[in-house]
């Protein structure tokens, strides 16, 4: 069994933690995250059984974080899912068909890339109703060109390979080539890119929720916890610490995972001494 790179392990652990927390939150949290207990406002960590303290309404911060993990993962999965489902076929189309299709896809990508994910999401939130769904769609659309370009780029390399030309002479259809040759070769890079995109999606959603344009109450969201905390920085600075830490650790986890996966799936050639 080859030794796994430390980045992969570390990333896997962090991501695993987030996933576990989110799943666990469905069945159990230390206290109810929505349960308001005014006398217990602004408690510090460990006081009266509040693991990480309580917020301005006496709600348990730890429980809120746990439920917030659900939201974080949900947004990430859907947003990246949209980007992949839209971007990969488009990229494949561009690589396989070339010509006009390729032009359209590439120009379209260029334009879409002009819209940073956050900006697009803000625009969508402005026009449509702000909410989780809007945010996910916007972020997903913003990332689509990234995947389209990736698949096209790798796809072109694959298409230039001799075995693809051979497959063509055997009468393989374009879609056949796509599924059997292009996709497996792109899969590695796709997976790595997906983890990176996941990390960015988390950051984007957090910013949106912070601005009030993302996940709406009563759904728990780490970003919104931060915006709430800002109002009470004087009373309890720690309130601003935990949600941000959760975000940072999740993003770090996905980044490390991506790094680790890249090392495993796409090892660089060791320079051989002549």
């Amino acid at each position, binding site marked *: 069994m080859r030794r796994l790179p430390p980045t992969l392990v570390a990333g896997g652990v962090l991501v695993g933690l987030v996933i576990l927390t989110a799943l666990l939150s469905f069945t159990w949290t230390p206290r109810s995250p929505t349960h308001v207990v005014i006398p217990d406002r602004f408690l510090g960590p460990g006081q009266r059984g509040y693991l990480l303290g309580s917020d301005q309404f006496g709600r348990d911060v730890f429980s809120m974080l746990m439920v917030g993990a659900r939201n974080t993962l949900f947004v990430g999965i859907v947003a990246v899912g949209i980007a992949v489902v839209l971007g990969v076929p488009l990229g494949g189309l561009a690589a396989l068909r070339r010509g006009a299709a390729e032009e359209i896809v590439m120009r379209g990508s260029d334009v879409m890339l002009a819209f*940073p994910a956050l900006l697009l999401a803000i*625009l969508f939130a402005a026009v449509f109703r702000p909410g989780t769904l809007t945010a996910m769609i916007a972020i997903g659309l913003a990332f689509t060109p990234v995947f389209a370009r990736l698949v096209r780029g790798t796809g072109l390399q694959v298409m230039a390979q001799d075995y693809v030309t051979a497959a063509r002479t055997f009468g393989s259809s374009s879609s056949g080539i796509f599924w059997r040759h292009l996709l497996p070769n792109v899969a590695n890079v796709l997976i790595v890119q997906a983890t990176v995109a996941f990390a960015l999606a988390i950051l984007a959603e957090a910013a949106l929720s912070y601005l009030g344009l993302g996940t709406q109450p009563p759904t728990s969201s780490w970003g919104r916890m931060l915006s709430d905390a800002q109002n009470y920085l004087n009373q309890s600075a720690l309130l601003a610490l935990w949600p941000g830490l959760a975000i940072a650790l999740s993003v770090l986890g996905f980044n490390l995972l991506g790094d680790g996966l890249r090392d495993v799936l796409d090892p660089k050639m060791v320079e051989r001494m002549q």
Partner: protein
Amino acid sequence: MLSLTVASLIIFLVVQVLPGDPAQVVLGVNATPDALAQLRHQMGLDLPGWQRYLAWIGGILHGDFGTSQVSSAPVAELIRQKLSVSAPLALLGMAVSVLISVPLGVIAGVRYRRLSGALISALSLGGIAIPAFWAALLLITVFAIRLHAVPAGGFVAWSDDPVGAFKSLLLPAISLGLVQGAILTRYIRSSIVDVLREEYIRTARAKGLTRWQALRRHGFRNAAIPVVTVLGLQLTSLLVGAVVIENVFYLPGLGRMLIQAIGNRDLVVIQATVMLLTGVVLVVNFLVDVSYRLLDPRIRATR
């Protein structure tokens, strides 16, 4: 150029056409038909879509961004005001980012096998995971609330108190710059590590240059090329990040205006601001492309 046009089209479509009736959007569900009709006429919605689009574009080319729904002020004027906050913020953020990342990135690259290099690399990994607005909150807690060194928010006009204005921009710029700096550090480091492996570095050393001299005279020029392209992207991220940061610090800049306009359903302002930001992004991308061509003589040759 084409991208710009298409982008403007998209923005217009999204804001004006997709939600159905912009007047409805502004006034809400409970508006009376008369109010709607009046607003529609006011907004020029009786004209067909493409005419409105052309009118809007024409206006922009003349510097007329329309009139704010809410404040009845010409949007162009509003933008000018807000820019006096947003532009310095973005530039300052960029400066912080570069100041942090260049020395750190170079050290991390040159000493990539030593502990110091690995440490910087790990730090930067942490840095890119931090949401800028969280960093801002933490900075506020420490510097503004505990130490009272800088204000926790708000802004004094440049004309009234330049020093105060600068101080209000300090924490925001640092929050922006820290995160962007982490990203830039990684790029610089990886660029330098790549360059150090190149053969011409070995040739330079064979000529008698020290490792550092070889890096300075040969390496930097080559390492700079990918870094410059990233700088352009950085500016984009900075602008978008500034939108959020301005809201954290209650700075009266473009970002805050945008968010407020969303709250007020001020479509004209929203359209104009997003268009402006997108335009800047596209221009920056274009400049990056151009600079890449200029910097790399190999690309210059193949025209």
